[in-house]
């Protein structure tokens, strides 16, 4: 459960970064064809950094989980079997 919350947080950070990049254009305080204002530059730079970090974080979380499953097949057994959608409860939630 806790891990799911953490993963959701990483995804939300990525989404917030995307929102920050798109917000000046979506809300209209950056006119098309005009030079970028200070707010737009701040939003785009901060949003880009956050989106990149969130994207990397999502991949790192998935890669870490997969490598743990490869390293410890016993915990893989606690995953729900395909089709049943039910785990045997041995997963510690990490």
């Amino acid at each position, binding site marked *: 459960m*806790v*891990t799911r*919350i*953490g*993963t*959701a*947080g*990483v995804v*939300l*950070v990525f989404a*917030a*970064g995307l*929102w*920050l990049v798109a*917000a*000046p254009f979506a*809300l*209209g*305080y950056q006119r098309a064809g005009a030079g970028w*204002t*200070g*707010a*737009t530059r*701040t*939003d785009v730079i*901060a949003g880009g*950094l*956050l989106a990149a*970090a*969130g994207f*990397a*974080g999502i991949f*790192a*979380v*998935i*890669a*870490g*989980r997969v*490598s*743990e499953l490869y390293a410890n097949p016993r915990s893989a057994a606690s995953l729900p079997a395909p089709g049943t959608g039910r785990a045997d409860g041995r997963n*510690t*939630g*990490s």
Partner: protein
Amino acid sequence: MTRYLSGLCVAGLGLCGGGWLVVAAVAFGGMDGGDAGRVNLATGTVLMVIAGVTAVAWAVAWRRRMRADGVLGERFATVSRRQARRNRRELTRDVRRAARSAKRSAREARRRARRFPRLADGELGGLGDLGLGGLGGEGLGSAGLAGGGLGGGMLADAGLPGSGLSGGGLGEPRGWIGGGRTGYAPHGPVRAGHGQGGPSTTELLVELRTLRALLTPLLEAAAAEPASPPLPRRQPGQERPRIPCRRTEPGDEAAQADLAEQAAPADEADPAQQGAQADPPASEVAGPAEGLIAGEGELLRLADSEEAWW
């Protein structure tokens, strides 16, 4: 570990980004003012909250994982001073009680040793008629009984390991008979290693009775068996009797003659035996050496034949 670390890194970056957005919106007057300032403030605040929750979640998950892997120890519940004092008092009471019990056991052991000094010192005269003279010095271990003339195999056949008298049962390193007195293990080496306090008199007598009942028939059978006749002794200077081992060959007439001459005086010295043998076969007439040689030839023929190999 990678995902926890990366999750924490992303959460940290989110906190920094959110903080920067808030600072930019508040401290710099929202840059251009209008919607941009409000959007940055709202986004920054939400981002900081999300990043904070994410960081806490990843930290908790990592701690759980480390605890499950045994890296972190179990958390002890904090105990109040009153509870700690109570626990200390109980512990002191338990220690005193254990010390008192140990003293009582030692006193009883000393009293028992004083009451049965002969058993404690290993002078078991009652077993002398069983031929177990080595009990006092060697104990009843496997080596001790082997010294008394009874091998370990006989004891195993008699079922003594089951009764706990074999192995390290009453052996001398741990036994109480052999002078060690460090412990008593009536049921084998496992308990012997732990060294129990000491046997009661009843246990000792039961063990000795069992031993007597098991060994008496063996010793009686050994005594009833007739002793083998003593081997003839050779006088100093006397030649050792030779065993004929040469094969007879058709051309070796001289060797056969020598052997016949050696056998002839023996036949002449015993005329009564000659009378008893009315019509002996040819090999016996020639003497024992001749018979041996003939038998050897037959054996060799048998060994060479194909049937011997099958």
